[in-house]
């Protein structure tokens, strides 16, 4: 019985370490990203799981949002689309292609506790493990 438990612990430890390593690597990547800070309301909504990252590159609602949260997310999505349009034009791609690319990255950069949408449409809470990305996403 104890032997089994110890074996299980030994089996799971490497995975936990890899997960923690990946999370640290992602944190290290996203750390210099905060040149411009998130609005406190947006940061709070993200942390509370009221908004989440969708594979299409925009914010979505894992649960029915309050009017304020909806307005805030839609405002951010409009700003995102403007940025996507500008960068898509610079790269000779479509807005959708650029948005999906950004969506892969935005989901990969979520931190534990934040919500993201899996390719099957289900909302998931990011843990220490890698997020479930669409097949089109590069291995991030």
């Amino acid at each position, binding site marked *: 019985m104890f032997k089994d438990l110890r074996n299980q612990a030994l089996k799971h430890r490497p995975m936990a370490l890899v997960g923690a390593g990946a999370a640290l690597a992602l944190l290290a990547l996203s750390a210099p990203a905060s040149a*411009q800070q998130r609005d406190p309301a947006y940061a709070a909504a993200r942390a509370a799981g009221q908004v989440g990252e969708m594979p299409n590159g925009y914010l979505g609602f894992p649960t029915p949002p309050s009017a304020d949260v909806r307005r805030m997310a839609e405002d951010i999505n409009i700003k995102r689309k403007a940025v996507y349009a500008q960068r898509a034009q610079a790269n000779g791609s479509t807005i959708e292609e650029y948005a999906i690319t950004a969506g892969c*990255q935005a989901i990969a950069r979520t931190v534990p506790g934040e919500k993201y949408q899996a390719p099957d449409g289900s909302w998931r809470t990011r843990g220490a493990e890698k997020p479930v990305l669409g097949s089109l996403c*590069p291995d991030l």
Partner: protein
Amino acid sequence: MMPRELTNRALAATSLPMQITQTGKRGLAGRRVTLGLLVGGALALSACVSVNAPDKPIVIELNINIKQEVIYKLAADAGNTIEENGDIF
């Protein structure tokens, strides 16, 4: 008497049954040929369909590859964009 009977019988036997059997046989043979052609045609068609079936997934795979290639090319740029627009990501 015997030859007459034989000739009569032979004539009677040759004319009507031959006609019937010949037409019958021709019809059957013709049907068999057309059936064979139909089956062959169906087989050929099904073979064509089974050849065409892989063609469609190949086209879809190509589209996916193109999209994936585009996304790979854009990945670095999108990463920079997210970092530069930290307020909305």
